[in-house]
């Protein structure tokens, strides 16, 4: 269900049709929905995630993903690490202090929000770092108007930028049983056309926002571009990816991702950028084959972020009433003619009680 459909249902319960002199606008309710979905994730702990991560070889730090809630397991070089409190580290051994090096024995968390980090301690001495060469590179394409475009990625979003560099040969990407020529039009939009080639190469783009993480670009079943999160470790050099074409080696819970959902233009007239937003992956991306020197985080995450009215809610129909109760509670608490504090308190308690029951029921999993 899309956020807008849920907002319409909530509007019906509030007696709000969002037309003339609305007491609540859809934008207001979307903001409430964003908050309630996050609260729901924190209160129920229903969402599990697994992610392979780069361990910084100078600090032992791992940048935690945006949907990070709480660390459940931490692994380094295929081995489990004890989760320890920051204050415990200096008492255990000198080598465990921030700048000590050795074989990692524990993992600790610090920071919050977007700056939250995990730190393996001691800092590993034998860490594997992604090789400088052979990793993700910017792909260079030429459009029909002979302008040159550089294609990079940022948090899974493909970005095409006009650049004064030499064009490369046509990139052929593989998608299921077909080969596709990757091209670009004069607006900077990426295109796929059926290729006459019967060979392809991995297109791996380095991420300019997420610590240089790599994204492998391939083609989906119907010729839409797909980005897959690359995997840190020695295998990175050859563009090892989690994707449909390698399910025997790597695993994912993919059902529907990589679909081009939005295109918009940014930048200035002299350096235009056209950004294609691709939908995120669903399900647990599980990195079954871990590398030496690689960190793996098993953590309690959050439901898929709600961005706007058109975001697809990755929450079961059976749980949407809980979300609805939370949103109505917040809506009724706002100053204005629609304010009903008593009912707001009641529904707030309904929301919390339901979240409690769900957490207690499914808490058997951990």
């Amino acid at each position: 269900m899309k956020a807008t459909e849920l907002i319409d249902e909530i509007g019906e319960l509030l007696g709000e049709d969002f037309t003339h002199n609305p007491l609540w606008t859809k934008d207001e309710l979307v903001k409430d929905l964003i908050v309630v979905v996050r609260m729901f994730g924190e209160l129920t702990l229903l969402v599990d995630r697994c992610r392979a991560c780069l361990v910084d070889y100078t600090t032992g730090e791992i940048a935690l993903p945006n949907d990070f809630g709480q660390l459940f397991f931490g692994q380094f070089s295929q081995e489990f690490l004890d989760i320890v409190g920051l204050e415990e580290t200096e008492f255990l051994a000198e080598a465990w202090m921030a700048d000590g090096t050795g074989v990692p024995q524990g993992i600790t968390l610090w920071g919050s929000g977007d700056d939250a980090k995990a730190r393996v301690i001691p800092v590993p001495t034998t860490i594997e770092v992604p090789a400088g060469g052979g990793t993700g590179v910017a792909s260079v394409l030429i459009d029909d108007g002979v302008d040159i475009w550089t294609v990079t990625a940022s948090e899974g979003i493909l970005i095409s930028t006009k650049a004064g560099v030499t064009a490369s040969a046509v990139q052929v990407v593989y998608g299921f049983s077909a080969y596709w020529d990757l091209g670009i039009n004069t607006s900077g939009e990426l295109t796929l056309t059926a290729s006459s080639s019967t060979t392809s190469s991995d297109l791996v783009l380095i991420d300019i926002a997420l610590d240089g993480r790599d994204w492998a670009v391939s083609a989906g079943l119907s010729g839409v571009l797909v980005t897959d999160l690359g995997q840190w470790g020695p295998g990175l050099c050859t563009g090892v990816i989690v994707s449909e074409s390698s399910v025997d080696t790597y695993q994912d819970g993919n059902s529907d991702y990589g679909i081009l959902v939005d295109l918009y233009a940014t930048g200035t007239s002299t350096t235009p950028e056209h950004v294609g937003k691709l939908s995120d992956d669903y399900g647990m991306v599980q990195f079954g084959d871990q590398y030496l020197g690689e960190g793996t985080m098993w953590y309690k995450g959050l439901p898929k972020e709600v961005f706007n009215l058109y975001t697809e809610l990755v929450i079961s129909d059976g749980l949407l009433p809980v979300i609805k109760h939370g949103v109505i509670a917040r809506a009724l608490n706002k100053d204005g003619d629609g304010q009903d504090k008593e009912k707001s308190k009641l529904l707030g308690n309904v929301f919390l009680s339901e979240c409690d029951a769900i957490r207690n029921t499914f808490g058997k999993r951990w």
Partner: protein
Amino acid sequence: MLVSTVITNIQNTLQTTGVYRSSAFVLKGINEALKLTSYLTLYDERRSSLLLTGTRNVTELPADSDGAEMIVPRYVANSVSGNRVNPVRMIDFELSNSNWEGVISGADSEYYLVLSPVHELEVELMCSPIQNIGLVQLDVIGAYVPVTVIDTDDIAFPEQYGEVLYYYGLFYAYVSVPGMVQECMDSYKDYVRLIGLMAEESASRFPSDQGIKPVPVEFDYDTITRFDMDSQRKDGERQVA
């Protein structure tokens, strides 16, 4: 149980079939009740089977033929040997090295773990160990979220708990009216009381204390007490002033 009968009962209590009491509106409340109750009591159990490939130990949970999505398995067994596959906690699952996939020749799966039961696209079943063979079939009895019903449907809901839908339907209607907090709370408390019984009955069928069992909703909110507390606080503020 006919959905139309539940709709009529709710409308009779509300004593109107107006805009926010129309059959279509009340039906939405009943559908919400059916789906929410499925998560809170795991009442909608159905039998299914799934295939585990010999090289992957995770699989998606199956949907039923009518489109209902499975939330969690409640009983899992090997289809060939009949041996039960037991639920374990995440913390008990051996994920200690690169062989966590647990490919072991000649050994059936003994344990399973459910991950992210938040949506059909997220939820996964992870088993260990797994045989390094083509496919392993597992029989599963799982709890489902039912699909949306219409007023002419005859639904598979326990008759003795039919009032669950009635009380949630009333709650749904009272939410839509400004004020009526007391009625809203009373109907929700009746709903919670009944699904508590449903949850206990559902849990009692799996007495081994393994696996996922529904835990009753604890809802002890009281608008009167709350009101009094607010009044006292205001009195105190006045005295301070």
